């Protein structure tokens, strides 16, 4: 059963457990590959996570002159291959979300690979496994369809009416803040 990463931004409490957990994936050399941002720290405590969205047609891979960035059949965009990466950092500039990180010492790009070490065996990625708030969820396509139905969402999952805020389609789906709009109160 194909599953995908789904991010419900408004659930985030900023605990950064996803960052800590990222280091625990077998293929991650104990370095985290994702981000959590304070949205408006002088005002409130809203935070949002950002991990690689695993674009269907990823700019990082397209920009790579060495074809070092592989895409798996499940759609996971992997870290640069050690033997191919030339350390040009094109990918870090090309990515619209600022995801790829660069290891100066190894002259090597590394990024979220959707815990391919785990997900290829049907085990959820570390970040979604530990996320205490279900901001990060590992869900089936049926579950995504239910969410889209409930929130009347477009191709890109968002709480507003269908629109396409980003150019490209991504394998990771995001629900922007405002998820509770339209929830029917029990009483």
């Amino acid at each position, binding site marked *: 059963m194909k599953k995908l990463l789904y991010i419900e931004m*408004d*659930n985030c*409490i*900023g*605990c*950064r*457990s996803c*960052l*800590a*957990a990222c*280091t*625990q994936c*077998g293929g991650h050399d104990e370095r985290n590959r994702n981000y959590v941002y304070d949205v408006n*720290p*002088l*005002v*409130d*405590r*809203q*935070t949002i996570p950002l991990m690689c969205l695993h674009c269907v047609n990823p700019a990082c891979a397209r920009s790579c002159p060495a074809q070092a960035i592989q895409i798996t059949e499940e759609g996971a965009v992997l870290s640069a291959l050690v033997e191919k990466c030339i350390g040009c950092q094109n990918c870090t500039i090309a990515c619209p979300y600022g995801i790829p990180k660069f290891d100066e010492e190894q002259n090597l790009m590394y990024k979220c690979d959707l815990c391919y*070490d*785990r997900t290829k*065996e*049907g*085990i*959820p990625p*570390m970040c979604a*496994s*530990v*996320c*205490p*708030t*279900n901001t990060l969820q590992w869900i089936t396509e049926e579950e995504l369809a239910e969410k889209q139905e409930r929130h009347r969402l477009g191709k890109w999952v968002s709480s507003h009416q269908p629109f396409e805020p980003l150019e490209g389609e991504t394998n990771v789906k995001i629900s922007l803040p405002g*998820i*509770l709009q339209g*929830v*029917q*109160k*029990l*009483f």
Partner: protein
Amino acid sequence: MLKDKFQQNIAGKHHPKEKLVKTHCSYCGMQCGMNLRVDTDSNTIIGVEPRYDWPVTRGKMCPKGVTAYQQTNHQDRLLKPLIRDDASKKGTKEGFREASWDEAYDLIARRFKELQAEYGKDTLSVFSGVSMTNEKCYLTGKFARVGLQTRYIDYNGRFCMASAAAGFLRSFGIDRGSTLPWTDIHQTDCLFIAGSNTAECHPTSMFRVWEVQNRGGYLIVVDPRETPIARRADVHLDLRPGTDLALANCMVNLLIQNGHADHEYIANYTSGFEETQEIVKVFTPEYTSEITGVAPEKLIRAAEIFGKAPNAIVMFARGIEQQVKGADNVSAYTNMCLVTGKIGRPKSGVATLTGQGNGQGGREHGQKSDLLPGYRKLTNPKHVQEVCEVWGITPEEMPLPGVSAFEMFELMEQKTIRGMYLLCSNPAVSAPHLNYVRSVLKDLDFMVCADFFLSESAEFADVVLPSVTWSEDEGTVTNLEGRIIKINKAQEPLGESKPDWLIHVELAERLGRGDYFRHLQTASQVADEFRLASKGGYADYYGATWDKIDRQDGVFWPCKDEADTGTPYMFEDHKYFHPDGRAKICALPYRPSAEEPCEEYPLRLTTGRVVYHYLSGNQTRRIPFLRDMCPEPYVEVHPETAQQYGIAHDEVVRLFTRRGECFYKVKVIEAIRKDTVFVPYHYGYEQSVNLLTIAALDPMSRMPEFKVCAAQITKVPAAAKEAAR
């Protein structure tokens, strides 16, 4: 049992040359399930893997949980006993030398015997904690009363759960932290959460909290700060710190007035309604608003939602409990459920969010100054007789009740207590009024500290004994639901470190009390004696065998015998534990905090946790990820208040009270009241906000008022700022 919508059947990732040891986190009362990854070549813990099948937390962990494994083989671990011969170096890291266990035990036994010969048995004290297994907690109580034969034992639960315990005992006649399992939370229709920064202190509750709202239910949060959970609340009651009792009385008043009281329930199962109704009458929304600073409309709306909700759960934590009227606050918020009959059934009830890993179990089995195993009372001759039979002593030999944790410091100052055995606690950071506490610790004639890191408190000790982390021993812990769970051993003790229960057994031998302890040579043998000692008490663990815990994903106490599967839901028969079988609706007049703001100290200082640290920070400040995320304390100030003081974000300011001063960076944020400032308490030395807090104690629970005192801020001249850094 207790399956829910979050169930996942995932085994977890298994790496080659590794085994997974299922256990729970070392930190808070959530006790999240986790698997420790153990390298099978070196037999050492190397990581963590989610435990997806644990029914309470479903693999979820906060950043403390994810990195908890890094404690075990940490470079700062104490590997050998330490002795300090030069007492003038007390209060510093200096002067310690490594010693053998024999030398350390001999020195402790000699000094303890000398002190007791000269000043009497009660000159020694034990200061303990509840971040350890029930077996260790149980044996610590026995070690104090049978091994050391002293009446003075108390524990850091006085800084944590004592008010919840006192309040529940008064309301229900029994103190089980939650009347229902955590797996009910997401199914209720209204969560009323007071004084709990749940998102940071019990993060793995949050997926259930948000689910209430996803289902169309309501979230009401009572907190002076707009915490990450308050940010999304349907109603945020942003009260002044220390005014909960007025707010709770107002809720009860409005519930009655709105016709939401369940008079049949009140008549059949409770007492005290009429007196309470009389007391709460004055707490109109307008009058309550004057005291609490919360807008009347919000109070009205909150009471309306709670009253209309078919099911509702009232939850609270240290915010309401760490006050000079903490026990009253607990009973007053509990009144909301009793008056509306929203208790004693699924999806409705009362729960406190237990702070420490074993804050529940650790308070039940005889570490508290007046309690014996099974929640028995030292003042009840029948209870004393029952425990004496297990311990093999006569009732005449049983020491009298002692005093509470902070009061022990006062007895140290008076030289009534001259020696202390400290374990599993770090009062040099976590106690209030630290200038006083630290000077008292320094003046002790002889102090022993058992810990796995050299804590700030260990720096006051003459002898430091290396104990083990949670992952190097086995035993049970009782989580915040009242569910007894099993901690499993994943690695042999590092260096020469030993589990606390073994240290007690060996030390008792040196003190000539070996006959009472010698038969306890494994954690499982301690467990068997402990279950027996609890048998017949309110907190009866006799039927909670390790095998049963494993088989049914934990056992909720009371669990009286082999056939008993435990008690997930309390009061289902609506029988309470008072002699009349009724719950007590408590009539509680309002009283202000011990130290109200004044012209000289116009701000209210409140303290609390951040998500990255646990208690005094002795563990979490050593974990690189957690330290990097929040390396130092800060003072949170509303922008308007900052403007009034002419201070800017990130500027270092002097924050002071009648008891001390600290220098903190300012964190400007709109998510706090204008009359309130907040500082996290996890830090040592001159960074400890407890240098400023007040040691005013709740008369019932003896809990200090960490959550409110009067403070003032001044700007710091540039030169002084440099010096402070």
